[in-house]
């Protein structure tokens, strides 16, 4: 996966074919584009000079081509000048012209929407970029929808995404370094950070990693993220992927690095911590009490979601003494008709729920709604009446599923849901000690993780008490005037605390 790119990126001096007869040029091109009927090659005779214009028709903006390139070219005689490359560059009302000598670069630029003009007898061919790139228009964020705050989401077009970010961070400090990744089909990748804030070491590390990626092509930002992460074998996402520009820019302004990939409706920010997946920008839009409450709620939900089904299994299989008598009677009654051991019962129900979730995600929205109703009835009623599961378990499993969906990051939510299954099995084999074993293993696993070389559990370990108000709860902005120390930004202060928390006398 991590090949080193050969440093000797030779300046490949391709075959210089010019000057050439236009008919021969057409022959060469049609040989190269065999069985590709899309290459348009047209001859013109202007001033007794043979001129060829060639392009791929669906890759270019036809209107622009017609008005700004073809019309002036054909009417060139009006100026009474000799038709040369230089004169054409001067005359045509387009700013993206450049000259090419070798066949390879002509071919590779043809496919990304350049129009070429070749004047017979010239040593070079003239190329104009008139690309037309189809992309979705900007839409509302769907996977990370919020009640408050901006609704816009990234789209597949890199230039649109960069445009959005530039308009949010109107600062000359904002850097967007360009990288090309992929050997077969190179893609534009941008490393976005604030020059004056982002940690230099982090930038260097990320740059290094981006340069070292050696792959034929990256399909999406999420895939590039997996190439770049510190450890590929472990369970949790290490970079924070998001489709919301506000979340992206908030992180960039806090001193993190962002990465955007062409054709990907999401960007990711690094370094991330375990807790950053539980943060939502909505915490900031709400007042601090609400923000704190919902952030804590998410932490609790994560814990609850992991622990509840395994505890049911452990308690009913082995340590039923931990359940108080009243509750035990209720559970016993509801489980009386169920013929399976608890572990099987739980796995069955969790499996059904995962099926429902997956089916809901794959189906079109209209059918998806019906799925929900069907699932609700099947799971809610029929399963109990058929004696497959107990009522109480349904409540518990539904609650734990709900709890796993409150995580703002979909990827992280998936990790949480996956973690449950080994824990349920451990609980089925060893009871409570199995759960404690599993949880401890998880804690060790998370402690060992790093994200861009920084500890995954910061600010909990290594302990930085002053960052707690950015991670575990929120304080009013008058007490929140510094960036998180955990990521070691160059500038810590955001605004003066003195002015923010100035106490005024009554009636002043």
């Amino acid at each position, binding site marked *: 996966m991590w090949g080193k790119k050969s440093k000797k990126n030779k300046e490949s001096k391709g075959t210089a074919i010019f000057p050439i007869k236009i008919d021969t040029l057409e022959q060469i091109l049609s040989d190269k584009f065999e069985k590709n009927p899309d290459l348009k090659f047209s001859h013109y005779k202007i001033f007794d000079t043979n001129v060829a214009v060639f392009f791929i028709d669906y890759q270019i903006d036809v209107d622009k081509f017609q008005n700004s390139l073809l019309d002036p070219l054909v009417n060139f005689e009006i100026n009474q000048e000799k038709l040369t490359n230089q004169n054409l560059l001067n005359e045509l009302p387009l700013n993206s012209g450049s000259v090419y000598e070798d066949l390879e670069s002509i071919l590779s630029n043809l496919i990304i929407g350049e129009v070429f003009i070749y004047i017979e007898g010239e040593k070079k061919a003239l190329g104009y970029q008139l690309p037309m790139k189809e992309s979705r228009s900007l839409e509302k964020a769907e996977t990370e929808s919020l009640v408050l705050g901006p609704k816009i989401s990234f789209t597949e077009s890199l230039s649109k995404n960069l445009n959005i970010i530039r308009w949010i961070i109107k600062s000359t400090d904002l850097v967007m370094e360009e990288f090309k990744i992929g050997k077969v089909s190179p893609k534009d990748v941008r490393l976005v950070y604030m020059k004056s804030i982002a940690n230099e070491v982090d930038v260097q590390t990320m740059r290094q990693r981006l340069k070292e990626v050696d792959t034929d092509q990256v399909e999406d930002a999420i895939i590039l993220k997996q190439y770049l992460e510190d450890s590929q074998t472990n369970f949790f996402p290490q970079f924070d992927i998001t489709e919301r520009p506000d979340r992206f820019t908030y992180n960039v302004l806090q001193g993190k690095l962002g990465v955007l990939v062409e054709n990907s409706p999401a960007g990711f920010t690094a370094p991330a911590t375990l807790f950053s997946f539980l943060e939502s920008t909505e915490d900031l839009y709400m007042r601090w009490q609400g923000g704190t409450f919902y952030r804590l709620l998410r932490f609790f939900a994560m814990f609850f979601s992991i622990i509840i089904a395994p505890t049911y299994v452990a308690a009913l299989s*082995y*340590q039923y*003494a*931990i*359940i*108080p*008598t009243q*509750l035990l009677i209720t559970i016993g009654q509801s489980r009386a008709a169920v013929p399976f051991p608890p572990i099987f019962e739980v796995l069955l129900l969790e499996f059904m729920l995962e099926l429902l979730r997956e089916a809901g995600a794959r189906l079109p929205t209209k059918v998806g709604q019906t799925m929900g109703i069907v699932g609700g009835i099947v799971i809610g009623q029929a399963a109990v009446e058929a004696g497959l599961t107990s009522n109480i378990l349904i409540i518990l499993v539904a609650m734990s599923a709900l709890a796993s969906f409150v995580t703002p990051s979909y990827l992280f939510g998936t990790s949480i849901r996956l973690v449950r299954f080994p824990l349920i099995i451990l609980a089925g084999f*060893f*009871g*409570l*000690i199995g*759960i*404690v*074993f599993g949880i*401890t*293993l998880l*804690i*060790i*696993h998370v*402690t*060992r993780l790093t994200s861009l070389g920084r*500890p995954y*559990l910061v600010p*909990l*370990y*290594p*302990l930085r008490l002053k960052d707690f108000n950015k991670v575990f709860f929120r304080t009013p902005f008058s007490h929140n005037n510094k960036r998180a120390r955990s990521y070691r930004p160059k500038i810590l202060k955001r605004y003066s605390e003195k002015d923010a928390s100035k106490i005024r006398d009554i009636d002043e």
Partner: protein
Amino acid sequence: MEINLKVKPGNQIQAFYLFFIITSLQIGVGIIGAPRFIYMEAGRDSWLSILISLVYICILVMCMFYILNQYENTDYFGIQVDIFGKWLGKLLGTIIILHFGFSFFSILLTYIEVIQLFIYHALPNLLIAILIMILVLYTVFGGIRVIVGITFLLFLSTFWLLLVLYDPILRVNWLNLLPIFQTSFTDLLKGSRATSYTLTGFEILMVIYPFIQNKEKAKLPVFLGLIYTTIMLLIVTIISIGYFSPEGLKSIDWALLILYKSASFTFIERLDYIVVTVWLMVILPNLALSLWVMSYGMKRLYKVPQKITLWIITILILIIVNFFQYDYQISDMTNFVGKYGFWITYVYPFILLPIVLVKKRRKKDKGSDTT
């Protein structure tokens, strides 16, 4: 062998974590059964014995710091080789490693016995040992920073165990603690001696010291850690005496776990089950740190790669653990560790100190002669 160590900045730890390292190593399985042993010796004045131990340990740790400050940046292994020469120094170093090995083993066995008695009567030793060793190995393979991290995180996540003791506290009959000052001084000292197995662990200071980043701040967390552990032991002992009555305590092996039996909530009963299982989190840092000392010591002394030592020790433990089937074997083992560990932990530093000072003086004289 290099006497002074150079530790990479990436492996250094903040002095503040020493608090958690010291307390985690001290609180292992010892505290579960300690009240009975202390009470057998010192009676109602057990609390006095514990305080005497605290004073003694504080003096001991000061002495340790004094020894460590004579050198630039070194540990037990380096000091011993420096003082006693290559052969004797390495032999003594090996004894230190063995000491940690034995205490590791006694903790593991005692915990296995607790699990078998409280929860799973038929679960074989090997299976529990494998589960625990997976956790310990996974931690130690992460290196010193992960070990310290686990120590810290598990300390936080098991802290609530202390709060549950509110229930037995409410039920204590305080009259059981009266009359005070009845025990003779020799019995008090014997009582202090009975705390030794529980309170060992702070000797890791002599091994982990080179890894501390800000050494000038190291003293406070260490002493706070010692005080914290002692207060824990004090609370548990006093509650046990008050709760079980003097006669009852004599026949109760694991007083602390039984104390948890009385607490119950509307959503949970029999908290002792949970406490016994969560106790795995309490002993894990202890085991991980001990195992790390062993592997690290072998690297220091004999240049054996840490990974090899870890695998060998793991295989040895998984074999030996099968031979301990009965209660008396385990308590014999624990007694052995307590006795042998007493001399290493509580007496040896006082012997080492004058030798270090003499050696230092002599070196200084030599140095002034030549210059």
